[in-house]
């Protein structure tokens, strides 16, 4: 077979695969890689189960929300689409903030605070952490490390700004 034909075929294959990356979404959402609120919620529940199976349970007093995590539409009524991994990310963050919130509680006994901080260090086992870009991962590592050393200021600010409602 003439080399230019093979070359043209190879270029076509490369373009087709790259185009699939851009356009093809098995979830069937309107935007590539996006999914509906229901699909994101399914992923959320799967991640919650996966966390519990790995011993990453929620902090005392926290329970997994059964609904209302992902909106179907925005305030204008337009349908919302959720990015890939949104469900897993939100579940992992919910788990993380359950323990972060406990760790920064003022009247918590020292041993309970240490136990909460030990849980926080396990954030590295979560899908959320593993998918972070390096810079954000470093920031999270630093936040947990300073908390483990006894300086809770950074963790407290994070909890104030980002903690979901229990």
């Amino acid at each position, binding site marked *: 077979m003439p080399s230019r034909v093979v*070359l043209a075929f190879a270029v076509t294959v*490369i373009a087709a695969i790259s*185009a699939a*990356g851009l356009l093809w979404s098995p979830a069937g959402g309107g*935007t590539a*890689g996006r999914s509906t609120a229901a699909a994101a919620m399914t992923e959320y529940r799967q991640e919650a189960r996966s966390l519990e199976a790995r011993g990453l349970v929620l902090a005392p007093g926290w329970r997994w929300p059964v609904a209302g995590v992902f909106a179907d539409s925005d305030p204008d009524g337009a349908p919302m689409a959720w*990015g*890939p991994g949104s469900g897993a990310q939100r579940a992992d963050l919910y788990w993380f903030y359950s323990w972060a919130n406990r760790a920064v509680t003022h009247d918590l006994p020292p041993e309970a605070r240490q136990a909460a901080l030990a849980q926080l260090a396990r954030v590295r086992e979560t899908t959320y952490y*593993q998918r972070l870009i390096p810079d954000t991962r*470093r920031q999270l590592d630093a936040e947990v490390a300073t908390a483990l050393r006894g300086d809770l200021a950074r963790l407290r600010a994070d909890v104030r700004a980002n903690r979901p409602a229990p």
Partner: protein
Amino acid sequence: MSRPASATLERDDGRGLSAGRAVAQAAVAGLAMGAVAQLCSQGGEAARELGASTAVWVTVGFVLTWLTARAWTGRDRAAWACVIAAGYLFAWLLAYHALFAILDHVPNSAVWGEAQRFVAAVAPACLILGLVATASLRDSIVGDICLAVPLGWSLPEVVLAARDGWTYALVVGVPTLLAGLAPLLLARDRRGRVSTVVIAALATGLVVYLLSSTVLGVLNGYGPAT
């Protein structure tokens, strides 16, 4: 029976290497590197950083492309270099994400959602790798600049790793730096201009540093909503 020159690469030992075989070799290398990267990502903190890094794995693909382009004796060298780079990158992504799905028990649809932006980025990336690799073979100032580009795109990750301490510097920074230097070391028989190489590497490093958070942010799905 000898192959037609137009479809044949010439190895150093004088034996022909078909373009198909070169692409297959690049794919095998990509599979191996992707698997190593994912295994690193499952390891300790510094190893995880190495697995999640970009420059070192892309540079391995560049070196492979550069070596193949250098051995090329037929026509369409630049185009085949791009194809070889694509073969490496696609295979890397396949191995990295397939292993991620297996080891972390992640559903295929979620893995595809994670991988698809990178898959889409292969087309422009293989053009850059193939064209830069081919241009770096020129014995001119353009060749010197192109030869320094991999070192340049490696520098930001080397600096960031060094900033994080000795462990990260050793586990992430050293391999990344060595990979970035590999094209320069492999082309040491050429009389390149040191000042040109240094300036080109620093300029590339600066551009990549300024663009990396935006580009990686979009690739990781944290970019502006579309």
